[in-house]
């Protein structure tokens, strides 16, 4: 009997100690890990979109609660003016969700650039949405707060040839981003003041 109690006590104490240690380390490294993941997964797209900004958009970011989810906004400072944000949106593509990072100027709601972050489109066909800037260039300078459609659907965006479904997915992602942007614009503008 004593043996069994000893085993239980030793194992319990050991597990508690290990749990405590891990919780402490997790707490200590959480922010750092989040930064690293942003840097390596979304960083290239964000930096590409906010090219030429004078700050580090990965560091200058804020979160806004939108219903059940939290959305991250990355701030770009141009000419000493924090007037540009990049944020993520999703559209339904050929092989699943297409993740988009969209940069928008808050003064005139114009898209400055966008990029694909994650996708599972057909390599060489739909994947050109990410590797070839042609499609994203077509959105440059357009008003974000409206609905986007590809030309076959009666819209104004030229689809990538052979990848209409993917292009449609990107359009719906940008449209979705426009809706989110419209809903959260006042809060975004409020937060941006802190960076000025």
């Amino acid at each position, binding site marked *: 009997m004593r*043996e069994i109690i000893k085993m239980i006590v*030793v194992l319990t104490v*050991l597990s508690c100690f*290990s749990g405590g240690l891990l919780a402490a*380390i997790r707490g200590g*490294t959480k922010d750092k*890990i989040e930064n690293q*993941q942003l840097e*390596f997964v979304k960083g290239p797209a964000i930096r590409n979109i906010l090219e030429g900004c004078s700050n580090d958009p990965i560091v200058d970011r804020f979160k806004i609660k939108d219903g059940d989810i939290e959305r991250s906004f990355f701030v770009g400072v141009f000419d000493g003016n924090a007037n540009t944000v990049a944020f993520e949106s999703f559209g339904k593509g050929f092989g699943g969700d297409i993740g988009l990072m969209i940069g928008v100027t808050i003064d005139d709601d114009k898209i400055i650039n966008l990029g694909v972050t994650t996708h599972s489109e057909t390599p060489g066909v739909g994947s050109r949405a990410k590797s070839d800037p042609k499609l994203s260039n077509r959105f440059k300078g357009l008003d974000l707060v409206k609905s986007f459609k590809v030309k076959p659907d009666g819209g104004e965006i030229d689809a990538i040839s052979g990848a209409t479904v993917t292009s449609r997915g990107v359009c719906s992602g940008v449209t979705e981003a426009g809706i989110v942007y419209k809903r959260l614009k006042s809060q975004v503008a409020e937060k941006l003041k802190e960076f000025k």
Partner: protein
Amino acid sequence: MAKTITQEFVKGLWDEIPPFRLVLGLCPTLAVTKSVENGLGMGVAVIFVLVCSNVLVSLLRKIIPSQVRIACFIVIIATFVIVVELLMQAFTYALFLKLGIFIPLIVVNCIVLGRAEAFAYKNGIVASIADGFGIGTGFTISLVALGAIREVFGSGTFLGISVFGSSFQPFTFMIEAPGAFVCLGLMLAMMNLAGNK
């Protein structure tokens, strides 16, 4: 049995060098040694886990009941492996992405469990630290050597720097799984040759 601390350390570098002499921990050895950098990263992670778990097992060897010792070892080892995983994510994320699943798999690396069972559970703390460092360093040297051979022949680079110039046609067999077995086998054979003289 009365070995000095230096002897405990040095034995890991040749006499009991894993994976060649102990032939333990082959899974990460074969899988991650595609390049020198990967091998070195994996080796350092293993040194950390090995030393920490040896210290703790050695400290607790009088308290841990022998019936549940394996469970205790695994809890201790798993804790340190997750510590390494979190630290790697926080500081060397690119390397973490490359090593991927093999970092959490250090938990089931027989070298770590083997040293806890065969050495730290029976020896004092200082000897256990020396043993952990020795075996860990030996493991790292093996991984780096294997990684160097495979990277130089398989992709024509060393630590990412081209060594043969652009005319070199990479021997891609070396960076694939069968190449790892062949390379390990040849190195083991050469070590046995050298040892038998």
